[in-house]
């Protein structure tokens, strides 16, 4: 087996995961994309484990660990997503914009503030 095959597959999977994380609006889809990326890493680990003939099986063991961590991650992630959904009736990632400057695009964002620049009041309003 040429190691380059699994490794290239893994690189492609990872890139696809990157695209999903960056482009998907639905938080659950983002989580799925993260899973894709994790799987790409797993494939890499297994491939290199096989290639290096690790007597301690570091690659495969680490793969198992990653799978376990992925399970934990998905559990917590979904719990968070559900909490968000319960509070906002939406899990669109780009509508969760409470951190944005003006809050204009987030429906549950803070009330509109003057975007005046250099005003003292503006400075006080933002500790």
């Amino acid at each position: 087996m040429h190691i380059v095959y699994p490794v290239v597959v893994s690189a492609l999977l990872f890139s696809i995961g990157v695209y999903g994380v960056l482009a998907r609006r639905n938080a659950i889809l983002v989580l799925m994309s993260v899973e894709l990326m994790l799987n790409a890493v797993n494939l890499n680990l297994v491939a290199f484990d096989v290639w290096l003939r690790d007597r301690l099986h570091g690659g495969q063991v680490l793969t198992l660990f990653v799978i376990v961590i992925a399970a934990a991650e998905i559990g917590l992630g979904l719990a968070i997503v559900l909490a968000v959904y319960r509070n906002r009736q939406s899990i669109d990632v780009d509508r969760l914009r409470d951190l944005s400057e003006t809050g204009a695009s987030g429906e549950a964002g803070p009330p509109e503030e003057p975007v005046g620049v250099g005003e003292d009041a503006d400075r006080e309003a933002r500790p």
Partner: protein
Amino acid sequence: MISVVVLIVLLPFAAAVAGLLGSRWPRGGSRTKENDRAAARRAAWFAIAPITAALLLTLWLASWSARALPRGSASYPGAEFWAGLLPGSTEGTLTMVETGSVPISFTLRADGLSILIGVLVVVVALAVQVYSVGYMRDDPRHPSYSAFISLFTSAMLLVVYAGDLIVLYAGWEIMGLCSYLLIGHWWEDRANSRAAVKAFLVTRLGDVGFLFGIFTLGFAAGSFRIDDVLSADIPRGTLITATMLLLAGVAGKSAQVPLQTWLPDAMAGPTPISALIHAATMVAAGIFIVARLYPAFLGAQPTLDVLAVVAAIGMLGAALAALAQDDLKRVLAYSTISQLAYMAAGLAAGSDKAAIFHLLTHGAFKALLFLGAGAVIHHVGSNLMTHMGGLRTSVPITFAAMTVGFAALMGLPPASGFFSKDAVIAAIEHSHSPAQPFLYGAALLTVGVTGAYAMRAWLRTFFGPARVEALPEPPPGTAHVFDGREAPRSMLWPIGVLAVPALLLGFAGVTEVDWGSALVSLIVALLGAGVVYAFWRGAPHQDPARMLGPFRTACERAFYVDEAYRAVFARPVLRLARGVVRTDGQVVDGAVRGAGRLTMSLSGFVRLAQKGNAQLYVTGLLAGLLLITVAAVVLG
């Protein structure tokens, strides 16, 4: 003996501490009238008892000194007088403060000069304290007021008994502080606090010179002890510099030209304060310093010449200003400046004995005059002589006492002022100073003007038609009561007591009267008084000051010195300050604010990227990571 001196200095200080801390003890009482009364009563005890003790001690010290044998030959000409009067002297060093170069010795000394002035200070202070009990009866701040007077007394005594220039300077500065606090006693009125600040700043201006003068003397002599300084062999140039610098402080404290302007304004304070500080003691401190360091001044003839010129201008100008004032207290204030200039003239003429003699008598009669004026003001409810008149029947005791005071001021025999002023004029007449003719002329003229303004004040206050002012409408439920009685007894007693030395103190120094010059000055004084009387006689309703004609306004304004100062110093400084503020506000703050605004507006551009979209951030993050990776591979 020195412990007695220490006690004399410390007793008023203890009174001040007790008055400040203890008069409202036990704490927790609300500010009711009863509590205020009780506090005032306590404060009066705290103030009067130690001063009385100090007076007794001082008298005992004086008697001891009078009986003691002289310690040695007089160290400088003119000192024989003190030695003759009070030959005993004592000196004690409590501690030495090592400063690294010239040590400061914490020394007190008592000799003839200081005991004399000490008696004056304690007597006047006691009189004022007693007087204040009545005068400040309803003032809730009486405790702090009397405590400050005690502190002031202590400081003045420290100056008087100081054996070391630095110790003296400490007392000197505490006096300045107390003066500030007491002038501003009624600080609710803006004018009063302004007057306090003015007094503080003007005297401070002189004190800077004074401090440097002390340093110059001390470093030249290698010691700050007064005896060491006086006996040290100091080069003439240094001496002239030092005495000139000291002269600045003297001018500041004693309200001499050109630093005289604070004194009339300081009349804003309570009248007893005017009597104590601005007539009898604090202003006397300047004269006292010159007398104390007289050998040094004698060695610096140019300084004495300058002092002579200053004194000549000051005495005549202040007397003329006094002639035109309507405010009784301001009349007295200008007369104080004038009389202090007399003393300075005596010093300049080479007779510290005459100057100190006049200082003592002046202290007595001026305190008397101020306290009497206070009683009159208390009675009338106004400072202005326009509101007074015909008071000789309603306040007979005050009238009598103030008559004595005015006589002393004019220099009429047998009042004390006659002898002391004669001594000064005689000293001037026999002076060998190059400014002697000028000084002598000014002195004689001033005698005439003094007679005039004293007569005017006397006439306008106690004679002529009574001007009964309508009393303000009393609160509902109280009857219209005209309090036609005289001031309370606690105010009358000090006036009466002070009248005695004002009248008789002259005979203590009667030893050598120059009858020639005395006659001349007496005639001149009567001439001035007569002119005023003539004018007043013609129209008792009108102010005799109208005889000055067009010159009157200038006199009333004290020759526009204040205005000149305002134009020359105050306005430019204010303008400069305003300019600095504007510069600070627009240039400095503008730069800061502009930097902030620039940053904020620049950040506004950066903020455009902060949409709150986490995916956008991660996109940027990954793109940057890729760029860095590629750059690291390509460039590395």
